[in-house]
């Protein structure tokens, strides 16, 4: 696949804090690329450098080989950005601001208006086209925020926490809409929501404390923490240490978080009787038992030792 966007050794410091440290990544044409990490990981700073809003202290970003960090506005216009916060002109109607921002990107008024109408229709906002943006509900404003990023038909679409603050109905609508754009456009999504990243992204880069930890497809990432499913057993009575010692000969991939035993193995359900016997032998009484697949949260924990939301 053709590389559309490339970031090389991007670094941004704010005083003593290194917000982004030597970030290098490549985004291919037509893929949905997820940037996953907890709050403060450096995702938004990275995005701001990628779309040219923020000048890196070192490193550079290229779009189809053209450097954009030198203020080349025409190259920057190839990127459409939907910021995390709602950024609208409250005193303009939905359609007025669609047309206005289109014209700022150099589109003719009529073309921008037509494109605006189309996008408002696709995002279920056509009925509100003549309403002032400030009078819309939060969910509607978020959808309009997304439409604004697309009005000039950019090659690359950057969505910063696209599902943040959305009501369930709008969340489904936005998710489906972004999925419909996949392959037509190159999409970069930043999120701290592992489910969102897992569902939407073709490849995911995990960031923490300004550093890029790993990049791969969601499936490949989940394989890095072990194959098979995950069995979680809450321990109601007994010693966690003794339980771990008793389980190690039976299931080698066993760990503990707080009062929960985490067992990872192929066909882990079939091993459940053996596991319960081992616990019984050390007088440990299991409570709730849960079975789930590996998640990106597990990947993050294995890489950082912390949960995404910690």
């Amino acid at each position, binding site marked *: 696949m053709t590389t559309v966007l490339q970031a090389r050794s991007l670094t941004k410091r704010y005083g003593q804090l290194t917000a982004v440290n030597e970030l290098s990544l490549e985004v291919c044409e037509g893929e949905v690329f997820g940037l996953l990490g907890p709050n403060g990981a450096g995702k938004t700073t990275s995005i701001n450098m990628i779309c040219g809003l923020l000048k890196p202290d070192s490193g550079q970003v290229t779009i189809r080989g053209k450097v954009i960090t030198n203020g080349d506005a025409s190259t*920057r216009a190839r990127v459409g950005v939907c910021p995390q916060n709602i950024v609208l002109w409250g005193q303009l109607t939905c359609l007025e601001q669609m047309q206005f921002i289109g014209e700022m990107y150099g589109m003719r008024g009529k073309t921008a208006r037509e494109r605006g109408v189309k996008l408002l229709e696709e995002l279920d906002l056509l009925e509100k086209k003549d309403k002032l943006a400030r009078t819309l509900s939060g969910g509607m404003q978020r959808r309009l925020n997304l439409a604004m990023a697309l009005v000039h038909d950019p090659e690359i679409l950057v969505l910063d926490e696209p599902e943040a603050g959305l009501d369930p109905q709008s969340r489904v609508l936005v998710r489906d809409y972004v999925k419909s754009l996949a392959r037509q456009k190159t999409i970069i999504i930043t999120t701290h929501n592992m489910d969102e990243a897992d569902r939407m992204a073709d490849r995911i880069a995990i960031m923490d404390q300004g550093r890029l930890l790993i990049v791969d497809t969601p499936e490949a990432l989940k394989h890095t923490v072990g194959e098979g499913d995950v069995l979680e057993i809450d321990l109601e009575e007994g010693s966690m240490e003794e339980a771990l010692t008793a389980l190690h000969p039976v299931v080698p991939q066993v760990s503990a978080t707080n009062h929960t035993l985490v067992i990872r193995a192929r066909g882990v359900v079939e091993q459940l009787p053996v596991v319960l016997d081992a616990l019984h032998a050390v007088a440990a009484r299991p409570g709730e038992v849960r079975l789930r697949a590996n998640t990106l949260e597990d990947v993050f924990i294995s890489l950082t030792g912390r949960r995404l939301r910690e």
Partner: protein
Amino acid sequence: MKVWKIFLKTLREMLRDKWILGLTLVFAPFFVFLYWIILSGGSTSYTVLVINRDAGVQQADGSMLSSGEHVIDAIRSITYADGSPLLKASIVTDLTEAERILKNRGAAAFILIPEDFSQALQQLESGDRSVTTQFTFGGDLSNPYYMVAVNLALMAVDDYVQEVTGQQPLIGYVEEPLGASAARSEFETYVPASLIFAVIMLIFLAAMSVAREIETGTLQRLQLTPISSLEILGGVTGALVLIGSLAIGLAFLVAVLCGFHSQGPLWVAIFVGAVSSLSVIGLGMIVASFTRTVSQAFIVANFPMAMMMFFSGVIYPLPKIVIFTVGERAIGLYDILPPTHAVVALNKVLTLGAGLEEVVYELSALVILSVLYFGIGVWLFKRFHLRSG
């Protein structure tokens, strides 16, 4: 053209933000109207307290001469060109009462007519040049009305004495008013400064309009598009100049409805107002450069607003602090404030009947200040808000 689109967008936003637009448009007309009400559409009448101790004197024909009463009539007869009273004489019984009224600023000055006033005049009339008598006057010397009231009252006394005694003054004075200034009511003399208020108030609208783009993040959205800072600020400025001109026009209209007559061409006055708006908007851009929120912009804009109000001669004239001279022109410290030139130019046009050619210097100064402030505003704005971090 992107500047045009920004202009239309800004204008649209302003027209829909009725509170701020309303305040900007109504401020100056309201001041004009307020002055008209306060001055009853005319001019200030200065109140002089008179303590009349004149005992009077019997004349040869047996009638009484009460010169004190006549002096009071003479004081009351001083009027403006339109016949409205310049001085009001209010009779009080003693100094204690006069002091009480003066302390409360119920009058501008007092005059005490001596007991022997009529007698002295009679002696003088009969040829006794050695006679003297003494008027006492006083008041709060820090009251700006005091000097005017006392001078006018004493002038009335002098005139009366000359009339009664037939003495001719040694020196005759002839007053030559500039332009139509003699025929202007005090209300009319305040109109140019009131119009400048409309221009000064634009600093808030300018700073807050730009700060709103910063605060809401829409400036960052614009920054993602291929647009320059000059185009953004140019468009915003265009809309602000239009609103400013409208505010000045409205203030003019209210002034005219209240009886104001412009001595010079009105279009020159509006042109002066529009150019002044540009330089004040430039100052607003500078304010916006240092702020990140609308409330910050409002607070910071108060500083240059107060400077323009109090140090430009809009409210009261100040002594010129000369920094340097260009040819025969002395350039003062306050000349960096656009209203300094605007108020002079408007006064020339509206009161003295000057045409465009007579305000070329002030207009040139305003253009230079506009270019300077707008240039600094764009540069700072670019540096603090449009340059990628």
